C-alpha cells in the first residue's frame, strides 16, 4: 500500500510539472510575440500599401474589421484569456492569417503527419544507429573503427547542422539527380493509400531524413561510446566476462543494456531541441510540415499560427518526455525502487 502511494505521488508530481511547464511556455511565447512591434493585419496592410501603392486610409474600416476578427482590438490580457479559453474548452486556435480564413487547428492537423512521420522515424533511427555504433566504438576502443567513428562524430558536431543538408541537396539532388529535393511527394500521384504515392513519399523523405540522421547520430555515438568505455571497467562486466559469456551477450545484455538508461533520458531531453532543427530542414526541403508552416507564419506575424505551432511542439515534446519519465521505472529496477 505504501509502495503504491509513493508511486502515485511520483506520477502526480510528474504530471503537475508537465502541466506547469506547458502553461509557462505558452505564457512566455504569447507575451513575447505580442510585445514585438506589429501585428498581422498592419503587416499585411503595409505590404499592400507598398506593393500596390494604394492608400489604405479609406480602407481603415476594413483593417479594423480584420483586427476584430483576429481579436486584436481587445487588450492583451483579454486576448490571453480568450485564447486559453478557446484552446482548452473548444480546441479552437483561431483563424490563420497565412492561409486565411482556414482555422489554425486545421492547418496543424494537415501538417502533423508529415512532421511527425519524418521526425519520429529519423530521430528514432538516429538514436538506434548512434547507440549501436557508439557501443561498437566503445567496445573496440583501440581499433581503427573506433577512431573513424569518433572522428566523424567530432567533425559533424562542429559544423552547422544545415550544412550537411545543403551538401546532400547539392550532391545527390542537383549534381547527380538521384533523389528529389523538394516537397513531400510527386504531384502526378493521387494522394492516398496507393503504392506509387507511398513510394514517392518515401523517396522524398530520404534526403531530409538522412540529413537529420547524419547530424544527430554524432551526439549519440560520442555519448554512448564514453558510457560503454566506463561500463567496461565496471565489476559486473568483468564478472560477466569471467562467466565465459559470448561477446555478443556481454556487449548487448551487460554493456548496452546499462547504457540504455541514461540514453533514454537523453532522448527525452533532446526532444526539446528538435523543433529548431526541424524548422531549417523543412524550409530547405520545402517539406509541408510544421517547421515550414512556422517559418512562414513568423514572416507574416501570424500570431495564431505561431502560437499553434509552438504550443503543439511544446505539448508534443513535453508529452514524450512525460511518457519517458513514467517508463523509466519500468526499465530501471533502481529507479523503480526509489519511486515505489
Amino acid at each position, binding site marked *: 500500500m505504501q509502495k503504491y502511494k509513493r508511486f502515485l505521488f511520483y506520477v502526480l508530481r510528474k504530471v503537475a510539472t508537465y502541466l506547469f511547464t506547458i502553461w509557462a511556455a505558452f505564457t512566455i511565447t504569447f507575451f513575447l510575440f505580442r510585445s514585438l512591434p506589429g501585428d498581422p493585419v498592419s503587416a499585411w496592410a503595409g505590404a499592400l500599401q507598398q506593393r500596390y501603392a494604394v492608400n489604405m486610409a479609406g480602407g481603415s474600416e476594413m483593417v479594423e474589421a480584420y483586427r476584430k476578427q483576429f481579436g486584436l482590438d481587445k487588450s492583451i490580457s483579454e486576448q490571453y484569456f480568450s485564447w486559453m479559453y478557446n484552446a482548452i474548452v473548444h480546441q479552437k486556435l483561431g483563424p490563420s492569417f497565412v492561409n486565411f480564413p482556414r482555422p489554425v487547428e486545421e492547418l496543424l492537423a494537415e501538417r502533423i503527419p508529415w512532421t511527425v512521420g519524418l521526425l519520429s522515424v529519423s530521430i528514432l533511427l538516429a538514436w538506434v544507429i548512434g547507440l549501436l555504433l557508439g557501443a561498437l566504438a566503445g567496445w573496440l576502443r583501440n581499433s581503427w573503427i573506433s577512431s573513424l567513428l569518433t572522428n566523424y562524430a567530432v567533425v559533424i558536431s562542429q559544423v552547422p547542422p544545415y550544412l550537411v543538408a545543403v551538401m546532400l541537396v547539392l550532391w545527390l539532388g542537383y549534381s547527380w539527380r538521384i533523389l528529389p529535393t523538394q516537397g513531400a511527394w510527386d504531384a502526378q500521384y493521387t494522394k492516398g493509400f496507393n503504392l506509387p504515392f507511398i513510394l514517392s513519399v518515401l523517396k522524398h523523405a530520404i534526403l531530409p531524413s538522412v540529413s537529420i540522421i547524419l547530424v544527430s547520430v554524432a551526439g549519440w555515438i560520442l555519448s554512448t561510446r564514453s558510457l560503454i568505455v566506463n561500463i*567496461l571497467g565496471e565489476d559486473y562486466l568483468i564478472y560477466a566476462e569471467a562467466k565465459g559469456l559470448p561477446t555478443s551477450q556481454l556487449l548487448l545484455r551487460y554493456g548496452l543494456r546499462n547504457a540504455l538508461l541514461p540514453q533514454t533520458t537523453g532522448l527525452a531531453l533532446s526532444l526539446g531541441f528538435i523543433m529548431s532543427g526541424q524548422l531549417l530542414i523543412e524550409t530547405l526541403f520545402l517539406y509541408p510540415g510544421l517547421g515550414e508552416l512556422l517559418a512562414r507564419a513568423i514572416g507574416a506575424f501570424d500570431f495564431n499560427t505561431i502560437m499553434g505551432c509552438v504550443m503543439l511542439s511544446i505539448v508534443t515534446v513535453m508529452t514524450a518526455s512525460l511518457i519517458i519519465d513514467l517508463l523509466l521505472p519500468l526499465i530501471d529496477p533502481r529507479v523503480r525502487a526509489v519511486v515505489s
Partner: protein
Amino acid sequence: MQVPVDLGLQAKPKGPDTLIDVRDMRIYYATTAGEAKVVDGVDLRIYRDEIFGVAGESGCGKSTFVEGLLRLIKLPGYIKSGTAQFFPKNVEGKEPDEPIDLLKISQQDMRKLRWKHIAYVPQGAMNALNPVMRIDDQIVDAIHAHVNMSRKDAIELMLKQLNMVGLPPYVANQYPHELSGGMKQRVTIASSISLSPDVLMADEPTTALDVNIQRIILQELKEIRERLGLTIVYVSHDMAVHAELADRMGIMYAGSVVEVGTTIDIFKRPLHPYTQGLIKSIPKIGGPRERLVGIPGLAPSPLAWPSGCKFHPRCSKAMDICRQVAPRLGVVEEGRQVACHLYETQPKVESENSERTLSEIKLHV
C-alpha cells in the same frame, strides 16, 4: 617427514596432484612513464583440492596475477611472458593428462574454460552483479553459455546453489540492489561454482564486508570445499583471513612470490623478512589498538623496482649482495620455498609431499 597420525595428515604416495603450475609469469602495463612490471616473475604451484592463499600488501600484484590466469588483462596491460600449465578434469576435446597453457590459449578457448573449469569472483564482488538484470537471469545465462540445459533445470541448479549458502529461493527473483552486500557476495560465490569447476579464484571476496559476515562466508567456503573437494585460490591482503582458511600460502612482494609453504609453517616460522613483517603487523585480538610496527618504508613502484632483492630498501637484514643480486625462489626444506639470500636453497622448484589437511591448520589458528 614426520607425520603425526592423529592430526589426519596424509602424504600421498606419488606427491600432490598439481592443478596449476605457473612459471615466470610476467604482466606489464605500458605507461607514458615506461613499463610497469606489475607481475614480475611469479612461480607457483597450486595443488588439487587445496585452499591456496595469495597474500601480500595492496598493490603487490595479487589481483593482476589472478586476472592474468583468467586472461582478463586489458590494454595497456599485457602478458609479457611465462607459462601457466593447467590440468583440469574432463575438458572437451582434450586428453585427460594433457595440460593447457592458460597464458597461451586463444581467447575463444579461454571463454570455454571460464566458469565451467575456472570460476572467478572478482575483487569488489559486491558490484559483480548486473544492476538491471534479475539474479536468476544472470546465473542462468552463464550456465547456458556452457551446458545444454533447459531453463527449468538451470533454475533448479541455481536454487540448489543458493540453498547451499543459506539463501532463500526468492532471492533469485530479485535485483542486486534489493540484496545486502553479504547476500550479493554469497550469490556470486555460490553461483560461480554451480558447474563444479576445477578451481575457484576468489579475489578479496570478503574485504568490503563486516567481520561477522566475513566469518560466515569463510565458514561457508570451508564447508563447500570439504563437501565438494574444490580447489580454491584465495587472494587477500589480510593475513588473519589466510590463517583461518588457507592450507598453503604464497607471499607476494613487488610482483613476485617471495615465500611459499603451508599456512601453519609460515605462521609458526616465517622465513622471509617480509613475511615476518607481515605476521608482526597482524592486529592482536583484544590487544591495545596501537600503530603496528610491521614493515618500515613504502611499497616500491612497479615502474622502477629496486635493484637486486626488491625488498632490500625496507629490509633490516639486508646485506651487500641483496642490493646487487636478485634472490631466486628456491626450496629450503620440504614444501617450503623462499627467495632470500639469508637461506641456502636448492634451485628445485617444488618438492613433493607438502600437502596437509585442513584439520591440522584449524588446530593452530
